[in-house]
């Protein structure tokens, strides 16, 4: 009986974890490109609103809502936000994607937030003619032509990995490096590219890997030799980078942690000495964005933010501009018309420069930024 009960418990747990995956495997028919009245239009926000990466999704949601509020005030429009919680699960992202496709009010999607959520949902959006604009998915092959209605307002990892390699090899003059990934569609290819690049520069590289939800790195740190100069950590959670940094110190290791874009968070990743690469500049460092930062602080009642929110603001701004242009003639628009208008976007960005897309959906002229962190204070260094 005990055996049966435990087996039942394992089955229930397995159901909880994988139930949505099973649902997601049956793909429904593609939705037709419908004609929507432009008076009742929503932006679908696909982000990890709960679960281990909720800090990221909540920041993106908050900035998207800020963008919608500002846009509606300036343009007299009545855009709304429809929520879809993808957590860090590809199968949940697919379920959310199907829901957005079936919702006639959704004319564009902001997200997915992570590369794996884009991989699992962008095909659905493409079949429905629905534009999706990500403010944080950086995997290179998302814009290799496989998803024609996918766009991103941030650069991809083909720019990030050489940046990190250059900085670690040239500026930090590292001879021994550990490259650590967190076993997901974002961090594995990025780590591989960084490791390849460093080896090409004659840097000795050791590869390690941890689960995405790991909270204890002490055993990984035991594997880090005393001669290691830098640990490059491709992660989507800033707190993980902080814990890794703490545990290196705890075990008396001198290696500094170099976090990738997911680690950017002045409130959560604040090592004594560390580095982080980010797909966007921190708005607080931009003189031109001071008014925006003040307005956001009023809007959010001084909610903390890093570099995840502002690109989502821009993604939402691009989407609303495209919908408004598509609606301009007769007050009605199809999703395909909106997608065409997104492709033609040419608008100033709060992050500096303008947002214009390449044929494949990448933003033109985007670059990665490298920050040095001293006792929790961030400074742009590259």
């Amino acid at each position, binding site marked *: 009986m005990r055996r049966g009960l435990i087996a039942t418990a394992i089955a229930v747990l397995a159901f909880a974890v994988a139930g949505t995956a099973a649902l997601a495997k049956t793909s429904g028919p593609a939705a037709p490109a419908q004609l929507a009245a432009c008076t009742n239009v929503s932006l679908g926000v696909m982000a990890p609103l709960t679960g*281990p990466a909720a800090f990221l999704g909540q920041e993106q949601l908050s900035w998207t809502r800020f963008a919608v509020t500002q846009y509606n005030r300036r343009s007299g429009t009545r855009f709304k936000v429809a929520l879809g919680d993808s957590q860090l699960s590809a199968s949940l992202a697919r379920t959310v994607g199907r829901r957005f496709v079936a919702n006639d009010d959704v004319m564009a999607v902001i997200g997915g937030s992570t590369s794996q959520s884009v991989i699992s949902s962008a095909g659905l959006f493409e079949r429905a003619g629905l534009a999706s604009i990500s403010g944080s998915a950086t995997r290179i092959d998302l814009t290799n032509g496989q998803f024609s209605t996918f766009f991103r307002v941030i650069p991809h990892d083909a720019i990030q990995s050489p940046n990190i390699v250059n900085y670690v090899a040239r500026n930090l003059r590292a001879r021994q490096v550990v490259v650590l990934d967190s076993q997901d569609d974002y961090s594995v290819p990025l780590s591989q590219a960084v490791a390849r690049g460093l080896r090409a520069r004659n840097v000795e590289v050791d590869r390690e890997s941890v689960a995405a939800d790991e909270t204890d790195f002490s055993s990984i740190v035991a594997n880090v030799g005393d001669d290691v100069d830098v640990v490059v950590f491709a992660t989507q959670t800033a707190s993980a980078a902080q814990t890794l940094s703490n545990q290196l110190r705890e075990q008396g290791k001198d290696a500094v942690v170099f976090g990738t874009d997911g680690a950017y968070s002045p409130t959560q990743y604040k090592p004594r000495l560390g580095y982080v690469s980010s797909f966007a500049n921190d708005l607080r460092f931009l003189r031109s964005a001071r008014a925006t930062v003040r307005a956001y602080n009023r809007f959010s009642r001084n909610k903390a933010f890093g570099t995840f929110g502002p690109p989502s603001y821009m993604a939402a701004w691009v989407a609303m501009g495209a919908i408004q242009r598509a609606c301009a003639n007769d007050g009605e628009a199809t999703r395909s018309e909106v997608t065409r208008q997104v492709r033609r976007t040419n608008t100033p960005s709060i992050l500096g420069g303008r947002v214009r897309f390449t044929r494949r959906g990448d933003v033109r002229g985007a670059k990665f930024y490298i920050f040095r962190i001293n006792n929790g204070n961030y400074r742009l260094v590259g």
Partner: protein
Amino acid sequence: MDWDKLVQLLVNGVTLGSVYALVALGFSMVYGILKLLNLAHGDILMVGAFIGWGVLGWLGGAQDPSVAVWILIVLMVLAAMAGCGVLGVAIERFAYRPLRRAPRIAPLISALGVSFFIQNSVLLLFGADFRSYDTFDLVDVEVGIEFGPLRVWVVRLVVIGAALAMMVALWLLVTRTKLGKAMRATAIDREAAAMMGIDVDKVIVKTFFIGSALAGAAGVLVGLVFGQINHFMGFGYGLKGFTAAVVGGIGSIPGAMFGGLFIGLAEALSVGYIEDFTRGRLGSAFSDLVVFLILVLFMLLRPQGIFGKPDVKKV
């Protein structure tokens, strides 16, 4: 053989194992008495971690605590134990007691629901950001014991010591007190215990209180040693604690202690050596594979666990 690395991994494994053992004890106690797997147990740990964090902030924070550090840590642990004990009792009263006579799948589903409820309540109350104990500001990283190049931070020693002390206290409570005798009697045969004059409902409530209090203490210890807490952390610790309870022999208190240490050590050593043993074919990423492989092997070869007794059915 790199002995420093081995000793470091053993220290890491025992630290992690102490936490798993505290969680496994809660699973085992509740299972022993109610034959119920309290799947919300990991989330009670998470609530304990947040209570500890709240007390830390209330007493000035890690940078400027208003009381001595050891008093602060004791207060954090006691507050978390009290808060989580009460939470455990409330869960038993409202989510499990009404289902005591229902088919066994019903309380399991209810437990899963309670788990999601607690997780999302904390998300709503505290937001999604990770919270930091900033333990490095509280206790300097240099304070600890050094064996040659190896350094063991004092907080790890505190965590291991506190967990062992609580386990011994629980063992004494179960084996040497009237309440412990009542708990054992209820675990053996609830109806017979009631006929002998034991107030079974009270015993169940006290069992939930103690099991949940241990989880609350484990939450604070996790926060102290690993630094970061969030609303989702309970899931992983719950799963590993459950594995430890099964491996040790669910329902057995020494089994839970042993299972916790066993799983903690297996996890730490597999991270450290899996690459060497598989000649680079498997990396540290597969440490969970080792842990859950152990679970599967026990389910197949010794389902009663190391310290459990096999079910005997009279025919």
